[in-house]
């Protein structure tokens, strides 16, 4: 990997002679903000992964089955989960609010009488899954397209760049909503790819696609800069094939940038998923995500704001943690970058 340029030591001293990845790891371990954010992320992910345990063993509830006529226990008394107003004209039905008891609707119930806390944990699994998967898919596609466009140049670059321009020309949320509305009706059937309408894979693919130009563009520029480097000319001179050069010489040099993009794109994609789900064009029932839960809570904003607040807090905390962690990764891998005015 002859082309990796030495990273100047700036923020934190590192052991001389260590490889660039090791140096990056050392820098991250010395970055308290990034470490805290990373730990927070791990905690959120772990808690969400334990959703079935919480629902089955603690809350004793199925968060995907309506429980409109059900009852629960609050302060030793059996009460309806959805409570009919008994005052005045007796209009309206209100779900039970937060009880503080993990075994009995810790954060209250939604309109269907389902445990909000259990749904938040299950919803978190899907939000994180969509965020991470779409970021991985987006970065993978962008890397391939960026490398091909930057390496070959000429008409290939022109075609791919115009493709990026076309996607970039649309407001990102508008494009996502349009694609979602169309694909949610019939699913995605493109050659060998078949994704059913309502499948979780659909928002993953849509979100990944709309952000491809945002990652591919800088990668393309970076590859174009690498094309004039001596190590690349040397590889050509030695008779290496284009594929080999891209794989063995170009890719390793842009990998740190891709790694920097991953957590940032995960945060962005998760927010996009939440927005789409809030608009009912993201994750579809019976699946839930933090976005769908915020949407569920909208109708109860006046009487049971905790549903929306709790889901919103989860989204905000996770996005902040991902961004802080992403900044840490970027600082570690590319200390010269000044994208956010940091190190």
């Amino acid at each position: 990997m002859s082309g990796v340029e030495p990273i100047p030591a700036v923020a934190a001293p590192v052991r001389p002679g260590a490889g660039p990845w090791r140096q990056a790891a050392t820098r991250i371990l010395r970055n308290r903000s990034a470490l805290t954010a990373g730990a927070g992320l791990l905690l959120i992910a772990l808690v969400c992964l334990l959703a079935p345990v919480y629902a089955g063993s603690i809350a004793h509830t199925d968060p995907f089955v309506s429980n409109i006529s059900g009852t629960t226990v609050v302060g030793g008394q059996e009460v309806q989960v959805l409570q009919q107003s008994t005052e005045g004209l007796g209009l309206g039905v209100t779900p039970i609010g937060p009880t503080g008891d993990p075994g009995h609707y810790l954060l209250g119930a939604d309109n269907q009488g389902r445990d909000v806390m259990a749904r938040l944990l299950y919803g978190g699994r899907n939000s994180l899954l969509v965020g991470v998967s779409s970021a991985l898919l987006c970065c993978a596609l962008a890397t391939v397209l960026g490398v091909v466009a930057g390496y070959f140049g000429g008409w290939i670059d022109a075609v791919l760049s115009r493709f990026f321009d076309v996607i970039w020309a649309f407001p990102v949320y508008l494009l996502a909503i349009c694609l979602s509305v169309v694909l949610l009706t019939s699913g995605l059937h493109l050659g060998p790819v078949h994704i059913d309408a309502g499948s979780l894979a659909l928002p993953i693919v849509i979100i990944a696609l709309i952000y491809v130009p945002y990652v591919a563009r800088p990668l393309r520029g970076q590859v174009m800069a690498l094309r004039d480097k001596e190590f690349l000319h040397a590889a050509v001179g030695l008779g290496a094939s284009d594929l080999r050069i891209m794989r063995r010489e170009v890719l390793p040099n842009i990998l740190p940038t891709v790694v920097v993009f991953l957590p940032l794109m995960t945060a962005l994609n998760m927010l996009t998923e939440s927005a789409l789900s809030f608009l009912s064009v993201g994750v579809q029932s019976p699946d839930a995500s933090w976005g769908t839960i915020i949407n569920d809570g909208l109708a109860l904003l006046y009487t049971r704001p905790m549903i929306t607040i709790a889901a919103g807090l989860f989204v905000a905390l996770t996005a902040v943690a991902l961004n802080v962690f992403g900044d840490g990764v970027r600082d570690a891998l590319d200390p010269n970058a000044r994208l956010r005015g940091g190190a």
Partner: protein
Amino acid sequence: MKRNLPIAAGAALLALSVSACSGASSPAAPAGSAGTADSSQTSPAGFQEQHKGGTLRLQAKSGDGTLDPHINYSNGNWQIFQAMYDGLLAFKKVGGEASYDLVPDLAEAMPQVSPDGRSYTFTLRKGVKFAGGGEVTADDVVASFERIYKVSGPTSGTFYAGIVGAAACVKKPKECTLDKGVVADKAKNTVTINLVEPDSEFPLKLALPHAAVLPKDTPDKDQGTKPIGGTGPYMAVSYDPNKELKLVRNPDFTEWSREAQPQGYPDEIVYSYGLTAEAAVTAVQNGQADWVFDPLPADRLSEIGTKYASQAHVNQLSAFWYLPLNTNLAPFDKPEARQALNWAIDRQAVVKMFGGANVAQPACTLLPPGIPGHADFCDFPQPDLAKAKDLVQQSGTAGQEVAVVVSDDEVSKQIGEYVRSTLEQIGYQAKLKVISTNIHFTYIQNDKNKVQVSVSQWYADYPAASDFLHVLLSCASFRAGSDSSINISGYCDKDIDARMAEAMTLDRTDKNAANAKWGEIDRDLTKASPIIPLFTPKQVDFVSSRVGNYQFHKQFFMLVSQLWVK
């Protein structure tokens, strides 16, 4: 009539004589809760001069389309049209049960009906004037009936298809002439309407806004936002569906029948558009508006029912919410599968989603209480999941995929999610498909879209059993591949069809026998379960503290012109 609003309404002491199938009656509202017994409220005798004047401020999220009474088919504008237009007959403009009574309006008296039931002769009142125009004549009546077809009115091919010459008018609207169907005798000042076949419901159809009498020189095209001068106590002076509809007193109006068209109280009625229901409720609470048209937000109902009980009015509607099951598509092509879902649905639970027991009543019958022919029975009284699962097994459809297609309004989404969950519980693989309210109603009607089950509502066009059973479930109401196939289930039973025709014929001679027959048909249809009734809704009207003389009309809802703001 599919209404454009899922009306949330609440309970009351009032007309809870209407008992639901399962014997589940709505609980009586607590003593002292004002604003409850509204349906029984009737107008005070005579006009109360001291309450005349002021501006009534109504609020809605958006306008309800064209202001042309021959074309508009929305409950929002039908309500307003009551103060602007008249037909030959009218539903009595009072609150309560009497509001379903027909009275002569532009006609002097109820029509003389020929022995064969095919001719209705009306003598017109003298001295009734159009706003800014001349006196109402027989020519205006003839021209108005022809205009129904010339503008291709939405009910020209249904409600008024029985008039002699109507068939040709429906085919070639621009060349429409009803010279044999609607005959004027200027000397006698009479109009005779001739029908191809007797139609016992025809007088009811004459009292709807689509049969309003307009000036004969009204252009034969949709007038859109351009007001047409009517004979009512108010006339529109401006209309922008995105901003405001303004009505002022019709200077040419003189009260000719308090029952048919009473003089109005406010000097002006201003209908403002743009606020969300949430914001409009707050405006009414603050006294900045007098009434909210849109369904009240579910999370505000409790507050309105407690803090503003005296300003809330709750009334039973002639309507029901239901699940149409596609009887031509698996799994609901099997009667056992349809009955399984009928057994599995917990109607009390669905009622909770609509706002609770004081806002809706569980429904077991297809004919809502108050509609002639309604019979008290309940063949699917309580949810029985075990029985439902057995029926699913018997039908051989267990494990099949079912998509529940609902519109994106909050109540429909909630019900859809519940139905999805219930289908899963009885052995299907169910998913929810939410589509825009703008396209939902036409989408679920077209059998090409292969909708298996959906959530829909039906509000009475007029009080008749046929407006529910014949319209929703007759063979003729199903049109393959059409967006306008109101028999959403695609259900067709020739025997039931024949019995419905028999009931309609019987209605002309023996109403009691006809009603009994409709009740039997209702029961047999309920057993066959092509549609599953969920609940009959109530209307909750929330008015400002200054509003008085609230009256609820069963056909056209709150009588806007009779409200006091002074």
